[in-house]
Structure formats: structure tokens, C-alpha cells
């Protein structure tokens, strides 16, 4: 399945002009607020009519202004999980969940009610009304409701933005399960790099109504040119590692392509693949192999590219084994260490730099 979008729309103070392709998996539409992400999602759902453009899922045209085609929202089979849930207050959770399924009857395949309820852990909520649910529970019901409408595309507009950190951590595993256990492709609107690193298969980065970067998540996140769009503070590479073993001193050893790293004990079985995020600001660069450091995680690496920012900062991209990592250093350090492409270095990462919340479990199939 592929989603193909090309649309332009002019608002009073802002022009949107984007074109991208979203393959199977989670495509994160990333950008700051006001970059036009929600407009794209609304156009795909049929809630906003763009001035010109075309969108199709697997060849099924949703709209094509040149050909005068406009499929009304209820015929699109595009599930939408809104930021605020938008559950029907007069219906119980069970009837909210079944709302879309009733209209989708006749659609060939689709997730069964029992399966979705189990997937999202909703068993004990079915008889309640939305008014009696917490924010996280509401979003889980909204997810289930969208899934059960048997969509051919699932749109999620910052479904975690209204939640606090604890509730986000509660929902993220469910989103991963949906990504890994259902066939439905997902377009996920977000401005959080952590969510990109955890969920994205593909990233489409928007800035002021234009696509500035698009590609596989790991490639976009480790691209120094994408740093200004993602935000210097949050920039960082996303790597996939495999859990090797749990050491008796409480550390878990994870193998990256360049060598082992150690993290505070993770509750996952050895052999499982993990997404690991290493933020650029948490990486220290050394030319020689550092000795006598308390930091456990030191990887040999080679400078790939150097990008000098407008201010005093420099983003350096390193190749460590098959992986790419980013480090943010000052211009003075970059000059003193002579960081030029090809220079051999060691990267020092404090073990705490690998935050638990940013670790996603990757399905074996990936």
C-alpha cells in the first residue's frame, strides 16, 4: 500500500504546497505548529477541500481537483484519531467502538471487535461513558474506534499532545502494537522528535508549508541537514540495537553495529531488537581512546559530514559501524579536534543518555 499526496492550499497568511509518498508502516508528518501538518491530514480525511491537488491510496483516488473528483469523507475509509479524542459523549465505550464498524459492514477484512479491545486493553471500560474516562483511556478508545471502522488509512493528529508524560508512556506501546500487528498504514502528525524516533518508519518533515526532508526514519534523524527542521535541542540519531544479555550488576548489554553499549536494566528478552535514540547533545567527541572515564559507552567512529550552524554550534555526523550518529559540539571544539570528514574519533555517551521512554520495541519482522 502507498499513499500518494500532492496538494496546495493558500490561506490568508500562509501557503501550503506539499507532495509526498507514504509507504506502509508509520509515516510521521513532522513539523512545528503552523507548518501545515493538520491541513494535510484534514484534506486526506475530507474535512478540508484543498484548492488544488490529488491524493490516492493504492490507486483509489480520494480527491483530484484537476479531474473534479471529491470523495465525501464518509466514503473514504480514512480513520482519524483526533488530538482531543472526539468520542461521542452520549454513547458508551462499546457503542463508540462499534460506531464506525456498523457503517463499514461489508468491507472485506478488518480487525475484530474482540481483537481490538484486547489490543488496546479496553475490556473493563466497555460499559462506561466517555465522561468517566481519563485522557489516556479516551485516546485508546478513539484509536480503537478508528481501527474498527476498517480504514484503509489511519490518520493520527498529535494523539498524545493533550496528555502528560505518564499518559503518553501509557499509550505509546499501544501505538507500536497497532503499527506492528495491523496492516493499516498510518499517517502520524507530530512535532515531537521522540515520537518520531519511537514510531516512525518514514519521516516527512514540513516547514512553513513545504516538505523539507522525506525518507526512512533512521536516515532523516541522522541527517545533519535535517537538524534545523527537527530542532537543534532535540536532534539525535535513531539506531536499532539487539539486546545481548543482562549483567548481574544491573546493566543490559545491547549490541550496535559498532560495538556493545550498556544501559540500566531493560525488561526485555535477550535477542529482541530495540530502537535506541542518542541525542546529539549527549555525545562527547574524543580523538584518542579516552581512559579513566566513568562513562561506559564508548564507540569508535569516523567523521562523515560536518555542518556548521548559523550560531556557534556544529553538528557532526559520524559513521559507527553501519550506523550514523550525530554529535553537537562548539565551533571551537570542532576546530581544535580538527573534525573533518574521515577523521577517526571515539564517541562517549553517558549510559543515562539512552532514555527508557525513548526505547521502542521493534517487531521481529522489521
Amino acid at each position, binding site marked *: 500500500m502507498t499513499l500518494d499526496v500532492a496538494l496546495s492550499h493558500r490561506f490568508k497568511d500562509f501557503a501550503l504546497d506539499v507532495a509526498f509518498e507514504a509507504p506502509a508502516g508509520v509515516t510521521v508528518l513532522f513539523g512545528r505548529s503552523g507548518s501545515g501538518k493538520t491541513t494535510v491530514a484534514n484534506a486526506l*480525511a*475530507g*474535512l478540508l477541500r484543498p484548492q488544488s491537488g490529488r491524493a490516492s491510496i493504492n490507486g483509489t483516488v480520494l480527491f483530484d481537483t484537476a479531474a473534479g473528483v471529491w470523495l*465525501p*469523507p*464518509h*466514503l*473514504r*475509509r*480514512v*480513520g*482519524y484519531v*483526533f488530538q*482531543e479524542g*472526539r*468520542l*461521542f*459523549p*452520549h*454513547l458508551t465505550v462499546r457503542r463508540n467502538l462499534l*460506531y*464506525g464498524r456498523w*457503517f*463499514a459492514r461489508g468491507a472485506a477484512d478488518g480487525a475484530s471487535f474482540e481483537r481490538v479491545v484486547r489490543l488496546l486493553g479496553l475490556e473493563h471500560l466497555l460499559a462506561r*461513558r*466517555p*465522561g*468517566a474516562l481519563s485522557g489516556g483511556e479516551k485516546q485508546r478508545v478513539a484509536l480503537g*474506534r*478508528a481501527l474498527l*471502522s476498517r480504514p484503509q488509512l489511519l490518520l493520527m493528529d498529535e494523539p498524545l499532545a493533550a496528555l502528560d508524560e505518564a499518559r503518553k508512556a501509557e499509550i505509546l506501546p499501544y501505538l507500536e502494537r497497532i503499527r506492528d500487528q495491523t496492516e493499516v498504514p498510518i499517517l502520524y502528525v507530530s512535532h515531537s522528535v521522540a515520537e518520531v524516533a519511537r514510531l516512525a518508519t518514514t519521516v516527512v518533515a514540513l516547514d512553513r508549508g513545504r516538505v523539507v526532508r522525506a525518507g526512512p526514519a533512521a536516515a532523516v534523524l541522522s541527517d545533519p541537514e535535517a537538524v534545523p527542521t527537527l530542532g537543534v535541542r532535540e536532534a539525535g540519531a535513531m539506531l536499532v540495537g539487539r539486546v545481548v544479555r543482562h549483567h548481574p550488576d544491573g546493566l543490559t548489554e545491547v549490541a550496535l553495529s559498532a560495538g556493545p553499549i550498556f544501559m540500566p536494566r531493560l525488561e526485555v528478552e535477550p535477542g529482541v531488537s530495540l530502537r535506541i535514540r542518542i541525542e546529539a547533545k549527549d555525545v562527547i567527541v574524543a580523538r584518542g581512546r579516552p581512559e579513566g572515564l566513568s562513562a561506559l559507552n564508548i564507540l569508535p567512529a569516523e567523521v562523515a559530514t560536518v555542518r556548521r550552524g548559523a550560531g556557534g554550534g556544529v553538528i557532526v555526523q559520524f559513521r559507527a559501524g553501519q550506523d550514523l550518529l550525530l554529535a553537537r559540539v562548539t565551533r571551537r571544539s570542532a576546530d581544535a579536534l580538527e573534525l573533518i570528514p574521515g577523521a577517526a574519533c571515539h564517541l562517549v555517551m553517558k549510559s543515562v543518555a539512552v532514555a527508557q521512554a525513548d526505547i521502542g520495541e521493534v517487531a521481529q519482522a522489521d
Partner: protein
Amino acid sequence: MSGWLGPQEWAAVALSMRVSFWATLVSLPLGIFVAHALARWRFPGRQLLNGLVHLPLILPPVVTGYLLLLTFGRQGPVGSMLDEHLGIVLAFRWTGAALAAGVMAFPLMVRAIRLSIEAVDPRLEEAGATLGASRAWVFLTVTLPLILPGVVAGAILAFAKAMGEFGATITFVSNIPGQTQTLASAVYAFLQVPGGEAAAMRLVLVSIIIAMVALLASEFVATRVARRVRGT
């Protein structure tokens, strides 16, 4: 109750109930439709429709009654057509009283329903559409249940207004005992004849009771529905 009330009084009470019931029932679907159009749709002539709906509230009831007589009377353009093709006569019949009551109560009904529609979050209706519901289904399964308290309030208000309607009714269908003499017309008629005060007083009591019961019923239904709709 028929022992306590004289036959003419009883006939007036029963007629008023029948007139108000049918006036409310028939105008309710139209009221919901017009309220929805005024609250949600943007179309040329929206303000004109709004003014037209509110006209009976502002015009002297006698004027409304006279306009009804001109339009729906046997010689009127609509009245003669109804008479010729469908054999329906409204003027000087109880059905005409229901029409007059319905027209007079319509603005109150539309106002109440319109306010409740405007309070419904249109984003819920959008959510319904993305889940596969057409506009009609969204209205029936999302909007209508959510505006139910407003619809109940509007209907009760219209019923109460219809019970008390006097000016337009007496102008359009006159005051014929047993045929078009409603509760209000009967009170008026009894006050015109010597010794009629006792009968008038009994009817006044009856109308107070009916009004109170209607009000309490509407409060009861509205709070129950509102609790259900709020989703707690």
C-alpha cells in the same frame, strides 16, 4: 373531572389539549429542520428565513390570525387549493386552531432547538463522517441525541404556548363552542356573560395545573436526558 367541569368547559379543555398536541407534534420535525438550517448552514436568504420564523413572536397575534385567514381561508390562495384538491378545510375548524397555535409557538420551539444545536461541537459531527456516516446518519446518530434536551424543552415550550394561544386562534377560527372554542377562548367567552365567573375560574385552575405539570415534566425529562448526553 367531567362532573366538576360543565360539558362546554370540558369540551374546551379537551379541544385545547388536542390542538396543542397536534400543533406541537406536526411542527416538531419542521422546527428541528429549520433550527438546523439556521444554526449550521450558510445560504442566501438565511436572515430572511430567520425573520420569517420570528415574525409571529413580534406581530400582534390578531394580525397573524388575520394573515392566516387571508392565506388559509376558503377564499385564500392556499386554503382554496387545499379545499379543492385535498378536501381539507382549516378555517373555523379545530385543525385551523392547531395551525394557528403551531405558527404562534414555532419561534419559541425553533429558538430552543437552535440554541442546543449551536452547543453541539461540530467536530463530533466531523468525527462521525470520518467513521463512515453520511450527513443524514451523522444527524440521526450524533446531532439528534445530543440536542434531545433542547428538543424536549422546545416541544414543551411550544405545547404551553399553544395551550395559551388566543388572539390568532379567535381571529382565524372564531370561538365556536365544541368546535373551535379552546380553553383561552372559553375563559374569554365566560367572562363576557353574567354569572360566568365561576366557570371561568374553574378553567383558570385547570390551565394552571396543566402548565405546572408540563413544566415539571419538561424539567424531569430534560435533566435525565442531559445527564445521559453529558456522558457521565
